[in-house]
């Protein structure tokens, strides 16, 4: 179980890095979504093997429960990650509207010049 999780987390991090290094905004966005989920999965793996353990809910039985702390951490991280990704969607959309390109290479091309009318 541990090995499968490790390989999955590694694949997710690798895929996320690949996507983030692409030029298209949409791929970069998907890369970041994958990246935050890879980190969450990694956190979940820190609670150890779940075999034979119950959910961390008190029901009167004395079966050993899985460590609840990583789950609490993941919940917090998901909420924060969701907020930041939402911000990123809006930022990329506004950049697309303002600059007329959805390609990071074109966006940071040094030959592009600031339009004259709003030069201050």
């Amino acid at each position, binding site marked *: 179980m541990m090995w499968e999780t490790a390989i999955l987390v590694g694949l997710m991090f690798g895929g996320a890095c690949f996507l*983030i290094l692409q030029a298209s905004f949409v791929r970069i966005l998907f890369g*970041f979504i994958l990246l935050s989920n890879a980190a969450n999965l990694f*956190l979940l793996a*820190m609670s150890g093997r779940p075999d034979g353990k119950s959910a961390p809910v008190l029901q009167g039985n004395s079966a050993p429960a899985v460590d609840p702390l990583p789950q609490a951490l993941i919940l917090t991280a998901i909420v*924060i990650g969701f907020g*930041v990704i939402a911000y990123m969607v809006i*930022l990329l959309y*506004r950049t697309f509207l303002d600059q007329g390109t959805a390609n990071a290479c074109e966006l940071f091309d040094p030959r592009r010049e600031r339009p004259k009318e709003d030069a201050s």
Partner: protein
Amino acid sequence: MKDLVFALPILLPLLTAIVALLAGRRRWRRWLIGLSATAQLGVALVLAHGAYGQPPQVLGLGGWAAPYGIVLVIDLLAAIMLALGALTALAAILFGYAELPPEDENPLRLPLIQFLVTGINLAFCTADLFNLFVAFEVMLIASYALLTLEADDWDIKQAFPYLALNLVGSTLFLVAAGLTYGMFGSLNFAQIAERADALAGTPQLTLLALLFLTVFGMKAGVFPLFYWLPNSYPILPSPVAALYAGMLTKVGVYVLLRIFGQVLPPDLSLPHLLMAWLAAATMIFGVLGAVSRNFIRGILSFHILSQIGYMVLAIGLFTPYALAAAIFYIIHHIVVKSTLFLVGGTVVVLNRTDDLEKTGRLWLATPVLGVIFLLQALSLAGIPPLSGFWGKYMIIVEGLRQQEWVLVFCALLAGVLTLFSMLKIWNGAFWAAAAKEGVHTEERRWRPMAAVAGGMTVISLGIGFGAEFFLGVAHEAARQLLDRPAYIEFLLRGGG
């Protein structure tokens, strides 16, 4: 209830931000936020006074004691940082009041500054790794919003590298927190410190330390991962840029101090060595970037990186003397750097631009501003007896003592190049005659703006001339930081 005063550095800005969001009248809001910022400075000074020579103050949130609940710990270092943060925020807010009339100000700017301060203060006070992550996120989300709030259509693209690199940094931080929990079964600083001693010298601990170095080095702006900073800060409005320049990267340096000085065991030679060499690279590349720019805020933004190099170098040398030097350098740097950004903002008002090709004649028009700039620029370059000299002197002495000749050479070279790029601003803005539009001294608002910068300069001069007192404080803060057994004992068994 008496303990509640230790939560004030977080509660006060948070409540102010929420009330300011709800309050309608802009003038009232300005009064409210100005008073709150002053009160925050007062609270921080009281805390710093109480922390000198005393064991740290501990507040268990919700009444839960140290290893189980989340605790806030205020020791001398945290209190110093709180005071500096409150001072910078107050200066930025007052400068903003002087720069724009209330009706022209973006209604979200002041509440967002308060949210930013909340995150910064929480990062200083917390003694829990995951809570530190939350503090970083509060701070970063507020900073993303402030960065794009007033950016124009062309500048907005510079926010993207800032967001992307910080998001990668946050993800790595999450992974580091997970690894720490997997290794030690706890996220409380004292408990990690207690259990890390057993692992001292093992490759796992070295790996964890390197991961922390990557994460917090990125937040601090250390060499290979600093690209998020120098192009994004110039798009900020000047008062907000002064706050960012003073505080944001220093939060990263503070956490490096806290994690490497207090939480991890002191015998991590590989990460310390790596830190020192990365710091030397940061200094050189940062200052070369500054030399290559030709507008004031661009030069100053690259200088932040170069100065971060000195602080991180001091942490990398890792002796009590070097850590005291790092703390003194932080005190000096925050005041000087934010003042220089405020001067840059005043130049923009007077010359309508901060492009050094187009600015000029300021020395004739406003010698006071020239004196303020000159004092702070020379202090940044490290000319005695100004405050920058003492920090650099201590770091170089410690480098010579450890016979790190190359590192010392890099530090001295960066100092010379700093002086060179400051002279570039001096020549371009104050001495050059080529101001096409002339100097707009009829803009009355430049006087209160220069007055705020002047007030910060007086404080900076005080740090330079009262160096003995501030060095004493820095030494005491470093002593408290490095006294790990007392910290563990106090947090896990004594206090709370």
